[in-house]
């Protein structure tokens, strides 16, 4: 099994969710994050002090998938999240050794 992590622009969330559903993925875990990268932030002004804010809001998704779906799923996410502008984010995958569904104790593919 693999764990796919995707860091995307918050306003692409709906598109990615739709794409995942179409692909047949029915579960994920989402966290609010912020990103630092090529997409430089903006300037904020507070009473005469200007700050260059370099962390920009991102949404972070984690999706467990079976090995054979991993690469394809990455493509699906990348396509749905893309706006073509700097800061679109990253998607990566790491190997998972075991996964369990808490409710049932099912392991492996059945846990999804």
């Amino acid at each position: 099994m693999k764990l796919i992590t995707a860091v995307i622009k918050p306003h692409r969330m709906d598109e990615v969710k739709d794409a995942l559903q179409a692909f047949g993925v029915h579960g994920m875990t989402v966290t609010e994050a912020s990103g630092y990268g090529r997409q430089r932030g903006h300037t904020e002004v507070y009473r005469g002090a200007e700050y260059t804010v370099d962390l920009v809001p991102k949404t972070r998704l984690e999706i467990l998938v079976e090995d054979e779906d991993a690469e394809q799923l990455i493509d699906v996410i990348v396509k749905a999240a893309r706006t073509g502008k700097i800061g679109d984010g990253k998607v990566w995958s790491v190997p998972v050794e075991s996964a369990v569904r808490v409710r049932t104790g099912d392991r492996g593919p059945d846990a999804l």
Partner: protein
Amino acid sequence: MEAADIAFVVICAAMVMLMTPGLAFFYGGMIRVKSALNMLMMCFITMGISSVLWVLYGWSVAFGTDVNGEGGGLFGNFDFIGFQGMLDLDNTPELLTIAVFQLMFAVLTPALISGALAERVKFSAWALFVAVWVSIVYFPVAHWVWGEGGWIGGLEIDGREVIDFAGGTAVHINAGIAALAAVLVIGKRIGFKKDSGMRPHNLPMVLLGAALLWFGWFGFNAGSELAANGTAALMALNTMVATGTAVLGWLIYERLRYGAYTTLGAASGAIGGLVAITPAGADVTPMGAMAIGLVSGAACAWAVGLKYKLGYDDSLDVVGVHLVGGLIGTLMVGFLAIEVGGFAQFVLQAIAAGAVLVYSFVVTLLLALAIKHTIGFRADEDAELTGLDQVYHAESGYDFSQSGGGSAAGSAGDRIPAATQTGDKKVDA
């Protein structure tokens, strides 16, 4: 004007002043977090713009003696430009008292419109809109209704006069229909009807706004008597009764239709009731106020759904609450008014409402079109997606991160505030 009345009206003025920030919170809490500050600022800026224009010529246009003479009644003269000739404190305290009280109305009314335009207009265009709109719509219409010689105030059928105690026509119908005209020009938010994230970012803030509005509205309504007497007391009582009932009206409607009593519904119902009782409260019994409250609460709850059916994006339901509530109050008092209520009175009310509807709609539409085709009214798409707070105000609403500027809202990387580096030169040079 007696000392007691001055005391009453000056304090009512302060209470009405608090309504504009109240409105800002009421609206601001309903917005997605990324444009919440912009919403607050759209309201706050009217406190600056209308105050300045009021001194320069607004008071004179609205409350100067009618310049068009008998039968005209379209706007006041310019004798009070810059408040000249009004400062004989011992002999004319009432002019100043009314001037500060009515200023607050000129601040609030354009602010009401802002909710309809939420999350998608240029801040500078909005400021321009406010300045022109109060000048060519609000000041004249206020004169029609309340000014010496104003034509609506002077209408008479069978000895009956139009009842608009505290501003059903001049404030709420006026702002509500202007909101409709403006959104027709400006168009919908990106994602309207589709975006799953368009929900309030801070409901307690919405309730805070509603609470401050409710409080200030006692000043707005009772203070409009310009005296502390039985009518003011009745108005205050009816304001409470109608508003409380409207809360129930909205909640019952929601419970029946959606199965839940929402907080947003309670807050909205309160505003609906306050709007509806505004023109009517001094002329109906408490039982009548309950009727107005119940109808306005339920009707506004229904009316806020219209935008989805008809397809105009009145973001925060200025039409559904202020226009609909204002019409309900203005028309119902036609039938319910103590003694004078009846069909003749209803016709009078309808004429007043209709006149304001037409004038405000047409002029606002032209104004919005003019802004659209000159400096542009709408924020560009990127600004709308990113959020207006960052683009126009260079700020983020909240930063709850422990690292200070850490995650949710970004952190400042340039670690020397610019002002210390080069910024100061710009000014001190």
